[in-house]
């Protein structure tokens, strides 16, 4: 421990030099156990309070003290999905930002990259997630899927095929599905904002 004490002294001296005056030492340390904030929460608080989202993305927190579970709404103002309101549930675990946020679509929707169970195929939600990304980038990425559905990485293969072969048919299918109706024997939820 002798070496460590040397390092401690050195650091204290540096700190004193930096602050210009020695900090008043005194009162001993507490003996009971104060509440501690976890690393995941520290990071998440930063991510959430610094969210900078377009008007088309809304986040709502059922419990204002729980950053780890919240809801998300995407309201596209242009593109195939204009006029729709899409609900998502976001779950973040204690291992954030090692583990990516888990996002699931709550509506049954007709979208090449979202399957009927609400699973989402977005690279930064899985294989390309990295701790340097933040919550904002994921939400922007998700928003982008509604502006530019990507037929090359399909989860709903039928929808992707239609998008590749016949754009106007795809457009019709999307607007029919958003009104609440059947496309190829599958019923889709009504998500129109009226």
């Amino acid at each position, binding site marked *: 421990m002798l070496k460590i004490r040397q390092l401690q002294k050195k650091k204290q001296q540096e700190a004193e030099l930096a602050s210009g005056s020695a900090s008043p030492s005194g009162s001993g340390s507490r003996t009971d156990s104060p509440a501690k904030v976890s690393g995941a929460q520290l990071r998440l608080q930063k991510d959430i309070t*610094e969210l900078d989202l377009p008007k088309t993305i809304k986040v709502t927190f059922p419990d*204002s003290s729980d950053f780890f579970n919240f809801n998300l709404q995407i309201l596209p103002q242009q593109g195939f999905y204009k006029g729709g309101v899409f609900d998502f549930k976001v779950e973040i675990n204690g291992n954030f930002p090692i583990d990516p946020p888990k996002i699931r679509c709550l509506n049954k929707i007709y979208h090449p990259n979202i399957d009927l169970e609400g699973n989402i195929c977005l690279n930064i939600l899985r294989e390309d997630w990295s701790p340097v990304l933040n919550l904002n980038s994921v939400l922007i990425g998700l928003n982008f899927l509604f502006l530019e559905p990507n037929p090359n990485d399909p989860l709903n293969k039928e929808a992707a095929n239609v998008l590749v072969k016949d754009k106007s048919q795809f457009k019709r299918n999307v607007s029919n599905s958003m009104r609440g109706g059947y496309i190829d024997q599958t019923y889709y939820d009504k998500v129109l904002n009226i």
Partner: protein
Amino acid sequence: MSVATHSARDISSIESILRNIGPYNEVPDEYNADEAAEALRTTTVLVIGAGGLGCEILKNLALTGFKKIHVIDMDTIDVSNLNRQFLFRPKDVGHSKAEVAARFIQERIGDEELKITPYFGKIQDKPLEYYRQFGVIVCGLDSIEARRWINATVVSLVDSELNNLIPMVDGGTEGFRGQSRVILPTLTSCYECTLDLLSPKTTYPVCTIANTPRLPEHCIEFASVIEWPKHFPGRKFDADDPESVQWMYETALARAKLFNIQGVTKQLTLGVVKNIIPAIASTNAIIAASCCNEAFKIVTNTNPILNNYMMYAGDESIFTYTYAHSRRPNCPVCGNMSKKVIAKNWWTLDRFIEEISGKQEIQMSSPSLTTAEKSLYLRNPPNLEQATRPNLAKKFNTLVRAGDEVVITDPNLPISLRLTVEFTGPEVEPDDVNSSLM
């Protein structure tokens, strides 16, 4: 030949290391062999994890001459542990790893002075205060989450005068690879500083899993990611439940047949869903040996300690590399020491924010405040602001207990700021202006 007193173990070979000051001793003027021997005997060491690494660590520490050892592990012994976790026997299956390991070492070494205290449970069960008693913490963990927790805990123990600094030695192995490192909380890089070194878990794109599986792993992921939640909504998969594993295996196998993919086995299924990496006993032995030597050097001062990260790669021939990983200035855990602030008992939350925002060294434009338990006030997003706004008018000491940590984030701050709050003064704002000046 020296004869050991009582039934204490003969540590003459270690004594000779302590008695002879070598050329590398960093503190030759202050070094004292008797004090070093005494430190070895009296320092309480905490071993976290009594698994593959933990068995080795416990054995090494006990044989090196440490006398007071605590060990924590939340796991029970599984048959599959017995090939490498050598303190356990078939009759121990189902019992606590920590308790069995402690008893085994204690009986085997038969040293009256040696006291190993096991705890069967989670590290998170223990209060902050519990960790203060240790001189060194040695970790042999397999979980990132547990490492982050203990790391944040030892960093938070360090006060503004740098007291209560507990060195932590962390070991980890993965097949033929491993690393050991020494963390001097707030002095050298902490675990959180190096999070970006972690190799990401192997994951596969959902689209591939759903549409174009090529590998047996894709079929297993399909069963686990897509089919499991569909069949058992809201239920978490339990890899220790044979029926669930069987279901997972059969579902994956059916998927593999459909796409004509070979190679889905029950073992691979377990490997993929549990993310199992094969453990190699000798890698554990190498890493544990390094960790225990560091603990020994930290406590006795005989030789310089590891500075601060040693990687070991035995998968392609053999390669080791040691370097000093530098601290990350904006590390959310150690980049900012918890600062102490004194609040008046009569302050509202609003007043508190006003007071700290005005401080030169803090300078915030729109701070958001939370404690470990609740949100105090959040500026953004709008509906959180609305939900927490009523707190502004509440008295601060009804929202926060003395000694609680308040975390403040602000777009102006690259890191989050941690304040430990203390209260003084009367409950009601004194009318007399002079009395509030003290």
